[in-house]
C-alpha cells in the first residue's frame, strides 16, 4: 500500500467508535481518535480510512498540517457489506498506527435509494463551532455524494458527483484538510478539532469534483 511505503504499521492507539451492527449501510457513524503517548515533537499528520469490501475501498484521508493537531474525528460512511473498517494514522516521526473494527451490515447501503438529500438546497452548509480546548468544528454540506455506481428508476447510471475536499484555514494557514471519496455518506458530515494559537477567522471551503465550491467563515477565539 502506497501509504505504508514499506513501513510496518503498529496495531496500537487507533480508537474506533463504530456500531457492531448497522441496519443502514448508507449511513454508518464513525468516530476516530488517536490515543498514544507521543514524543516531544511527534504528532499525527494524517488519518486514512478504508472499507476493504467496498467497490472503492478508500473512504477518506484527513490531514493535519501542523503540530497543533487534535486527531479526533466524527463522520458518516457507507458500508456496502459486513466488513472491518481499517484506519491508518501517520505520525510525523514516520511511524504508522493501524486500527480496525468489524461492522455487520444487514441491509446493503451503497446501491439502494435510501440516501436522502434535498435537491433544492445542494451546497447548503451547516457549521457549529464550539470554542474550547480544542475547538470543535461540526460541519455538514447538503450533497448527494453520488457514487456513479447506482441507477435511477429508468435504469440509467446516475453520474458521479462528489464533494472531494474540505479545507479549513485560520487566516491563511491551512489547519485541517479532508479528502472525501465515494464511501462518505450523502450530505458529508464531519466533526474535527482545531487549536487556534490566536484569534482569527476560520474559513471552510468544500470543493466538488466539478470544481464548484461552497464556503463558510466565522471568527474564532
Amino acid at each position, binding site marked *: 500500500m502506497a501509504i505504508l511505503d514499506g513501513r510496518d504499521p503498529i496495531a496500537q492507539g487507533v480508537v474506533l467508535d463504530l456500531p457492531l*451492527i448497522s441496519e443502514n449501510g448508507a449511513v454508518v457513524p464513525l468516530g476516530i481518535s488517536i490515543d498514544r503517548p507521543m514524543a516531544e515533537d511527534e504528532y499525527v499528520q494524517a488519518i486514512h480510512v478504508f472499507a476493504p469490501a467496498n467497490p472503492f475501498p478508500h473512504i477518506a484521508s484527513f490531514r493535519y498540517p501542523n503540530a497543533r493537531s487534535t486527531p479526533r474525528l466524527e463522520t458518516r460512511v457507507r458500508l456496502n457489506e459486513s466488513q472491518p473498517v481499517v484506519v491508518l494514522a501517520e505520525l510525523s516521526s514516520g511511524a504508522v498506527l493501524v486500527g480496525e473494527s468489524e461492522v455487520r451490515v*444487514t*441491509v446493503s447501503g451503497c446501491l439502494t435509494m435510501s440516501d436522502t438529500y434535498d435537491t433544492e438546497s445542494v451546497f447548503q452548509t451547516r457549521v457549529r463551532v464550539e470554542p474550547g480546548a480544542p475547538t470543535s468544528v461540526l460541519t455538514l454540506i447538503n450533497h448527494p455524494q453520488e457514487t456513479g455506481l447506482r441507477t435511477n428508476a429508468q435504469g440509467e447510471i446516475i453520474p458521479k458527483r462528489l464533494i472531494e475536499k474540505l479545507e479549513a484555514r485560520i487566516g491563511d494557514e491551512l489547519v485541517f484538510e479532508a479528502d472525501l471519496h465515494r464511501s462518505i455518506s450523502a450530505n458529508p458530515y464531519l466533526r474535527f478539532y482545531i487549536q487556534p494559537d490566536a484569534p482569527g477567522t476560520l474559513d471552510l471551503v468544500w470543493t466538488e469534483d466539478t470544481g464548484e465550491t461552497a464556503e463558510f467563515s466565522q471568527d474564532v477565539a
Partner: protein
Amino acid sequence: MISRRKVIKSAAAAFAATPLLSMPFVARAQTAGRVVIVGGGFGGATAAKYIKRRNPDIAVTLVEASPRFYTCPFSNLYLGGLRDFDSIGHSFDELTDTYGVELITEWAEGVDGDAHTLTLASGETLGYDKLLLSPGIDMRWDGIEGYDEAAAELAPHAWKAGPQTELLRSQLEAMDDGGLFILSAPADPFRCPPGPYERVSLIANYFKESKPSSKILILDSKDAFSKQGLFQAGWQELYGDMIEWVSLSNDGRVIRVDAENLEVETEFGEIHRADVLNVIPPQKAGFIAEAAGVTNEGGWVPINPETFESQQVSDIYVVGDATIAAPMPKSGFSANAQGKVAASAIVAALTGEEAPAPSWANTCYSLIGPEYGISVAGVYRVENGEIISVEGSGGVSPAEADAEFRAAEARYAVGWYDAITQDIWGSQPA
C-alpha cells in the same frame, strides 16, 4: 397413531370436560424439565404457551412484574383517541388456567447462569433447567443530555405502554388548538421502527378532528425510516402540511432536552419549543439481560439464530426487542415468532432431540388514519449461521394503491391485533 396436534387437542378437551381443570397443575408429575421465563410480553408469554402446547409435562414459570400486560402495538390508537387504554391490556388467565403456567407477579432482579438460578425482588430464588428472557427494552438515560427519568415525567417517551402512554395522552388532550407537538425519534436500532411515524399519524388524525390548527414536528436522528414513502404520501393525502419531518442531515438530531421548558436543541444548535414534547431516546436490552450477562458492549443480546440461545451464557434463551436479530425488526410480531422458535428449541433440548430448523415471518401494519393502513412484511431463515431475509419475499405495500386497498389493510391491522393477542394471551377482540 395420531398426530401430535391431535394429542394436545384431546388432552385439552379432556381437561375441559373434567374437574381436573380446577386442580393446580403443579400436582401433575412434571419431570420433563423446568423452564423459567422472565417477561410476559410478546416473546415471553408466547414462549410459555407454546412450550406447554408442545410438551405439557415441562414445568413453566412466568415471572412478570405487572398483573396485566399493556401492548406498545396499538398504543398509538389510544394516543390518537381511537381506543381506550383498557383495550390494549391483556391478562395471563389463559396461560395459568388453560396451560398450567405458574405466574409470579414480581420483578426479576438477578441471574446466576452457573448455578442456573433466577433471583426475584423478594429475594426468593428459582432454579431452572432453561431460562428464557423476554426483557424488552430499557431507555438509555445517558443517551440525550438532559433526558433522564425525571425529564420523562414532563416530556414522556411513552415507548413502554403504561403510565407514560397515559401521560402523553393527557398532555395531548390538554393542549390548546394551534399547539406544536414535537416527537424526537432515535437512530437505529430501536423498538418498533415504524412506531414513531404511526404515532404522529394518529395524533394528526386526532388534531385534525379536535385541534385542526395544531402542528406536528418530527426531529429525527435518521435520514430514512421504515415505510417512509408510504407514510409521507399518506400524511400529505390525509393531513396536508400538518406534519413536518426533519431528517438527520437537515439537523434533526436532538442532542439536548430541557424538559422544564419543553425545549430541545439539535446538533447544529437549533432550539425548538414544543407544547407537547415526546422524546423517544436511544434504547438497550431490558436490565435483566445485562444482569444475566448476555448483553454485548452495545447493550443488546447476541443470540444463536437457530435457537435464540444466548451466545454468551448457555441455557439462557433471549427473544424479542432485546436481541440482535436484524434483519428481523424489533417488533411484537418478531418477538412472537422468536418465542415460538425458542419454545421448539427448548422443548427439543429438554427431551434430547434436535431443534427443528427455524423459520420466521414478520408483518408490521401501521395506521396512517383509521381507514388507511400500510404494511411491511418479511420472511426469514438462517443461512450460514445468520438470519437472512428470504430473497424475493416481503416488502412494503404498493405505492400506487386505491382507498379500498388502504382500507383493507387498516381492517387487517385490527385483525392482526385481535389475532396476535388471542395467540399470546387468549384475549378476545375489544
